[in-house]
Structures are given as C-alpha cells and as structure tokens.
C-alpha cells in the first residue's frame, strides 16, 4: 500500500520528536555533560529542545503549516515568549 506524502512526513516528524526526546533525556541524565558545558547552557538547551518539539507538533500534527498566518504567528509567539521567559529565568539565576 502506497504511503502518501503526508503520512510519510508525519512519520518522519514523529521519529525526529522521539530522537530529540531521547537526546534531551540522555543529556539531562549524564553527569559528565556538565564537565563539558555550563549548567545554564544545558538548561537553556533543554528548554530550547522542548520548544522545538512543541513547534514540530503544532506545525505538523496540528497542521498549523496550512493555517492562516495570524494563527501560526500566535502559536509561534506563545512558544517564543514561553521559551524566552523560562530560559531567561534560568540564565539569570544560573549564569551562562
């Protein structure tokens, strides 16, 4: 049975989401990583990766890529503002 273009892309996005999830979890659980990068940078990265996953879910699974720009920009704004605030709090207290 032929897999449609939309189906295959959704599957690819799913695998990317899973890979990012495992990469984030491994980064957070590996104590040696703090010897390589600053704690603040790690936290910002983890928040950034979570935001990236959220973006992928909204664009592809929620199909906002087909939505009017006003709706997409509202969602992008929410993701961006939340990411900046959370990362900002982390950087402010952890340093960078």
């Amino acid at each position, binding site marked *: 049975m*032929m897999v*449609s*273009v*939309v*189906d295959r*892309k*959704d*599957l690819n996005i*799913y695998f990317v*989401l*899973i890979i990012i*999830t*495992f990469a*984030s*979890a491994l*980064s*957070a*659980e590996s104590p040696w990583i703090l010897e390589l990068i600053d704690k603040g940078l790690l*936290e910002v990265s*983890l*928040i950034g*990766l*979570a*935001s990236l*996953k*959220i973006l992928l*879910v*909204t664009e*592809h*699974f*929620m*199909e*906002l*890529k*087909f*939505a*009017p*720009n006003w*709706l997409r920009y*509202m969602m992008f704004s*929410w993701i961006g*503002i*939340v990411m900046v*605030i*959370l990362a900002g*709090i*982390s950087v*402010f*207290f952890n340093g960078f």
Partner: protein
Amino acid sequence: MKEYSFDKAEYSMSDSMSEVAVLESPKRVPVEPGFWVLIFGDLLVFSVMFVAFMLRRFESADTQRIFSEGAQLLNPAIGLTNTVVLLTSSFFVARAVVQVRKGETESARKATFLAIVCGLGFISLKLYEYSEKLGQGITVTSSPYFEYYFIFTGIHLFHVVIGTGLLIYLFKRLSTVSQVNQDHLPIEEGVACYWHMVDLLWLMLFALFYLLA
C-alpha cells in the same frame, strides 16, 4: 455551515504532489476558530504555571536544593516512557484525521483505537507513578517541589483523561458508520487539536520536572 472541501482523487497522487494541494484551500484554520480561544486560554494558564515553577525553584539557594532533590526522586524512565507514549498517540491522532479526510473509515478507526491505547497507557503510568510516590511517603505537602509536581501533573492528567474520553467517543462514532464523510471532519479535527495541545503541554512539563531540576 463550514465547508471542508477536498479532492479525494488528488489525495492518492504521486509523491511529486505538494502537501498543500491535497486541500482545496491552501490556508485553513484547523477546527472552528472559536475553539482556538479554548486552546490558547489553556496554553496561557499553563505558561503561567511554568513560569511560577521556575521562579519558585530559584527563590533561594534552599529551594534550588529542594527542587533538585525532588527531581532526583522522580522516576525518569516513567517520565521518558510517558513522553514517548504521548508523542506516539499524537502521531496516531494525526493519522486518524488524515484517514477521515481520505474517507478511509477502517484505517481511521484503527488509528483512533491505537491513540486511545496510548492515552490509557499514559494514565496508567501516571497513576502508577503517583502510587509509587505515595508508597514512599511523598505527598503534595512533602516539599514545595512535590506541591508543584502533584498539582501541575494532576491538572495535566485531568486533561489527558478528558482527551481520552473524547477519543473513545470518536472511536464509537467511527464504529457506527460504514463510511466516514465530511460531516465527521470538524469534530475529528477538534478532538485532534485538543489532544495535540495536551501533548505539547506535557513536552514542557517533562522538561521542567524531569530534566531541568
């Protein structure tokens, strides 16, 4: 009544066809526009919760230590599994919507069923995690970290329960018809958007509670 028009014949064309062309209108609001008021309202409430968590965490050196110790007591394997389960369910829900558009009743039913299984799996794992904590003597009043943990993940779990109930309703609807049509699409898309919202909220909760602290 909103018209959702699509060309079923075009949908099975070759890979060279663009995704946008499968829908007659290239720009469309997935689900009723008013539904997005609910979605953004929920997102706003949860974002305030996320910020409150971070600010409480860094309130003092003591709270940083408490939050760090609290996070160490969580089971990362369960958190990770729950994240994978919810992402998988989102994939199946997205598939179900596509199948409804194509008029593929049986495939839509199967995808919805698999999404329900994932939803029930998430609920089961979460309840097991809660019972594990309670068995260790950890409750909502044990520390500021677990106060946030139980309240935030509890509210999210409530959303998951509602979403799973909606998916079960969709499955029953799909089971009673021999052929889906355009009338099924609005509610299918609405439930799908709600479910994806539940999923994306968990993605941030997982990062804050299981990874950051």
